[in-house]
């Protein structure tokens, strides 16, 4: 290959690229709009903080699913199984960490939480690997079969949990230092909700870092857009699929631990119960978009909280209404990923 005869011309300034900030304004605008309706500032802050905490947990769960959806074009209704399994794995280990969880030391409590998260992610990651190899791999590209086999997988997982732990709910008590509230004047914010927001932000930042600053992240984003071209560039996208599926399953396990502590009780159907919300978040955000998933999760949770307070009878349908409104505005979600 010969070098150019003439030196490359000096770069002229490129035209500025417009950033799409409108979706970023949705949560603040919704919160501001709700303030006069709620009336009381302390109630508004409490509802908003609870909504943000719940939204972060939903984001953690949904972020893995959106990548699996976007990159692998797999409709994985079995994602709920990893939520339940992650939570139950934490419940199994938690009693042996009582020395760390029953002390008032915040540091020791956080160490215990991290240990429980690590176990849950390891178990659900391994389960995700087996799930992808045995259940998903034979049905790539066949959406109807994917729905059937992954719903089947979810039901089998739920029944296995019932067989091992019984049908009744079991307790997952919060570590001692996570209980109670932080009080600012008339406003009380539960400590665990602050922890949930912090964990959600760490996961979001880590995902942005991996997707935006590493070659693996670039490959995942490119694969979401055009997997065939990624292969034509010389990368084995199936291996990438497996890695993303394991990571998505592990994130669901992490979300299961956080969700279990949020409710302080586990049921075999907890994963299945939350899947409707998770799918709404993934659709609102735009399939394959982590940023869209983050905003979608916050929107869904905050909307559910405000509606539950202002018009409890509408609470059940509020998220469907929210999804309909978002899709009327942007038919492919808040941040649609370009597809070939």
């Amino acid at each position, binding site marked *: *290959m010969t070098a*150019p005869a003439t030196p490359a011309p000096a770069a002229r300034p*490129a035209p500025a690229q417009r950033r799409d900030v409108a979706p970023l304004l949705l949560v603040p605008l919704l919160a501001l709009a709700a303030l006069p309706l709620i009336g009381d500032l302390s109630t508004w802050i409490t509802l908003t903080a609870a909504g943000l905490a719940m939204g972060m947990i939903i984001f953690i769960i949904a972020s893995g699913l959106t990548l699996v959806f976007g990159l692998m074009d797999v409709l994985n209704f079995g994602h709920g199984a990893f939520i339940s399994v992650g939570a139950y794995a934490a419940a199994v280990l938690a009693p042996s960490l009582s020395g760390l969880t029953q002390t008032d030391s915040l540091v020791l409590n956080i160490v215990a939480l991290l240990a429980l998260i690590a176990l849950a992610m390891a178990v659900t990651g391994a389960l995700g690997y087996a799930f992808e190899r045995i259940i998903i791999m034979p049905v790539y590209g066949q959406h109807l079969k994917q729905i059937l086999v992954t719903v089947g997988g979810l039901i089998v997982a739920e029944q296995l949990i019932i067989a091992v732990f019984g049908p009744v709910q079991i307790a997952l008590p919060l570590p001692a230092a996570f209980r109670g509230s932080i009080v600012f004047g008339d406003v009380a914010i539960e400590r665990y909700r602050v922890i949930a927001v912090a964990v959600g932000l760490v996961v979001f930042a880590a995902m942005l870092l991996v997707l935006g600053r590493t070659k693996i992240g670039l490959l995942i984003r490119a694969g979401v*857009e055009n997997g065939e071209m*990624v*292969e034509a*560039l*010389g990368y084995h996208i199936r291996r990438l699929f497996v890695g993303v599926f394991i990571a998505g399953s592990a994130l669901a396990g992490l979300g299961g631990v956080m969700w279990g502590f949020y409710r302080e009780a586990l049921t075999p159907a907890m994963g299945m119960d939350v899947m409707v919300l998770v799918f709404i978040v993934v659709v609102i955000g735009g399939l394959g978009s982590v940023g869209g998933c983050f905003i979608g999760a916050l929107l869904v949770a905050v909307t559910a909280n405000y509606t539950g307070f202002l018009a409890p009878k509408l609470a059940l349908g509020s998220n469907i209404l929210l999804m309909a409104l978002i899709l009327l505005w942007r038919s492919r979600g808040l941040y649609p990923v*370009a597809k070939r």
Partner: protein
Amino acid sequence: MSSDTAPLLTLTGVNTHIGPYHILQGVDFAVPRGSLTMLLGRNGAGKTTTLRTIMGLWHASAGAVRFDGADITAWATPDIAQAGIAYVPENMGIFADLTVRDNLLLAARSGPIDETRLRWIFGLFPALERFWSLAAGVLSGGQKQMLSIARAIIEPRRLFLIDEPTKGLAPAIIANMIEAFRELKKNPDTTILVVEQNFLFAKSLGDAVAVMDNGRVVHAGAMAALAEDRGLQQRLLGLSLDQHQ
């Protein structure tokens, strides 16, 4: 590795089915080393299917694709790419949500982008330097085609498969493309197979030519010979010479 005089790529009796359709019906042709070979033919003749079959994006149901002596017919697409074949699809296949820089970074499989080579590419396609940090989706059609070709040449490859590089481009951009291909051809180790509908473009660059019709190669030879034989052009390609020359 086969001898230096043997063709770099040969297709022997290649058949490809897409669903119920029998698209390639026994394709035979060879791409000489160091040449720029044009693959011509009417719409639906099977040119794009031929490139996709070489890349393993669709697998041949019969016949053999040999690259530098190795039978790559059943290889997976990434393995074919790693063997040294770069592919520029008809739709350009750029990653619209990634920046120009990230598109090239992904194509540089063996590590960081070589700075000298990048300067050389900027010399061929100055727009890419200007739009370096922008999402590739905002580029014009011509700039996307430049990026698509730049991605193929960002690292040395042994064979370039390029599908309709001038499709939908303005004459000024096509002239830019012709210059870029001339620059590429200066390297005697570069072998290029281009699918093209634009006969003037093909005539100005091609060393060898193969013409397809109904899933078969119906003519193969020197480009210069086809360029001079108006009757053959009319018969093979249905060209109206007054419109094209």
